[in-house]
């Protein structure tokens, strides 16, 4: 069953796309990751132009993050003040990212940049998750008691100026680190079509020392608004948001996330986590091969408008 995507200007198999949305949805339901960092490369492998894949995936993440944040909000596990500071950085980063995107597009290097960013990003998170997964399996086997991290320990982050009190997180820290994190995530969102939770969550835990239970909710809160803005900016600057594609991915993702949440309660996450690591590394390897291997077509041909 084929459907013509009006913005991507290709005909695609509806079942395959729906399945891709579903499969990534299962993973995000199981692991609590957004899935943008897997979905965008899959769309590119399938033949969607990279610039359309990035912009449209940002649009899909808006939907999946909203459905995710509500549960955290009900449990009062969102630090809105911290989220808003991260968002201010995110807005700045989005505008910077879109500018960079337009610049690279004009000099014909945007596809290369997207691939490079993905190889770097997938390579690092893939290895982290992989190592973490193996360590979790080993430590469980040895029956070690997990070490409790000393949260109140002071680091260089706590010596910077412009300190603000974040009641919910129980922190009194400078706004510079969260704004910087926000900017970085905003740039990632606009160039790669990802939410950036996989960068923001560790940064919030290890750098800002936020309590773990409110980290996910707070990052989702920021992601909703940043990806909303990125979607609008891409639509406005590049006309690359394909609403048809977004709707297919959203519906696939919804079904997948439900299945994933169901499976997640029943399967051992530690063991599956390193499978996720393997999967991410595989996608990374494919991207890397395409960059390094002799290209099939030595000429890149595009229309001039």
């Amino acid at each position, binding site marked *: 069953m084929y459907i013509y995507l*009006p*913005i991507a200007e290709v005909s695609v198999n509806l079942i395959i796309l729906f399945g891709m949305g579903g499969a990534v949805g299962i993973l995000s339901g199981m692991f609590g990751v957004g899935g943008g960092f897997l979905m965008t490369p899959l769309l590119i492998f399938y033949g969607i132009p990279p610039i359309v894949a990035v912009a449209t995936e940002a649009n899909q993440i808006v939907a999946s993050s909203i459905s995710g944040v509500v549960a955290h909000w009900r449990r009062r596990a969102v630090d809105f003040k911290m989220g808003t500071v991260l968002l201010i950085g995110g807005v700045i980063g989005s505008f910077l990212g879109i500018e960079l995107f337009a610049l690279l597009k004009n000099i014909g*290097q945007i596809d290369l940049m997207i691939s490079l960013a993905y190889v770097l990003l997938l390579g690092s998170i893939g290895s982290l998750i992989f190592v973490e997964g193996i360590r979790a399996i080993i430590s469980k086997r040895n029956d070690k008691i997990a070490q409790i991290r000393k949260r109140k320990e002071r680091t260089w982050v706590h010596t910077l100026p412009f300190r603000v009190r974040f009641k919910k997180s129980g922190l009194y820290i400078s706004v510079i680190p969260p704004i910087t994190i926000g900017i970085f995530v905003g740039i990632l969102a606009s160039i790669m079509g990802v939410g950036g939770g996989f960068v923001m969550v560790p940064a919030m835990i290890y750098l800002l020392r936020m309590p773990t239970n409110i980290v996910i909710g707070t990052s989702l809160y920021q992601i909703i608004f940043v990806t909303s803005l990125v979607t*609008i900016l891409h639509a406005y600057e590049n006309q690359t948001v394909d609403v048809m594609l977004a709707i297919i991915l959203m519906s696939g993702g919804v079904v997948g996330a439900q299945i994933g949440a169901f499976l997640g309660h029943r399967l051992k996450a530690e063991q599956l986590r390193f499978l996720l690591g393997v999967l991410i590394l595989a996608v990374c390897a494919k991207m890397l091969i395409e960059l390094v291997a002799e290209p099939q077509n030595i000429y890149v041909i595009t229309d001039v408008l």
Partner: protein
Amino acid sequence: MYYNSFIKTLIVGLVCVGFSYTNYASANEVEADLVVQLDDPHIQIGSNFFGEELLIFGAFNSGDLSKSDIIIKVRGTSKSISVREKVKKYGIWVNSDDTIIDNVPSYYAIYSNRNIQRITAQDFLKENQIGLNYLKFISNEKNQTPSIYEEIIKKNKEEGIFIEKYTGVRIVGDKLFRASVQLPKDINEGSYDVTIYFFDDQKLVDRDTSRVFVNKTLAGKYIYTQANERPLLYGIICVVIAWIAGLSVAGLSRAR
């Protein structure tokens, strides 16, 4: 799909019979040397478009059938394309600066009943840009463009946008021909010029020119127009759709 092509074949059959009938009825008073009929001059690309065939059929007034030839040329609007060569830098393949090539057809098909080189003189083919080798591209750079031209032709052939089919025209009986020209699924919107050349003993006897329009219909066209003409509003609507989708999913999971 099968049903569709069956109906088309049936129509062609009936029309052919009709043509033959009129020809037999007035065998000595056929005025035109070439009569052409297009199956459907308006082609719509809906959201489930996966390629279409343009059916062309007609009659010619042949003296000696073994020396009669038909060439059909279908050409889309011309466009400019940018070509970048990939070069290896620091171990990865990156794009070099681009060369702009103008006058590249968005679609180009040659259908004939035998090798066009044997149908008529090369000069005529060149002059009328009949045949992939005779397409006249325009470039601002002189260096190494022939290899770029070859690459453009190769790529477009692979995608079914450039077609050269020397067996594409079927001669039926002694004065009828038919061809079904393949339009690929990723075809551009716009007008397509269809020229049919009728040769007798290597000499052009008659030519017929007509035009086919390809339109994107329904949601596809509407979305494309909105995205390009009202990009800000379009972007906001995309976000609103995502918000509604996200909130309703959250609502559903709460209800359970």
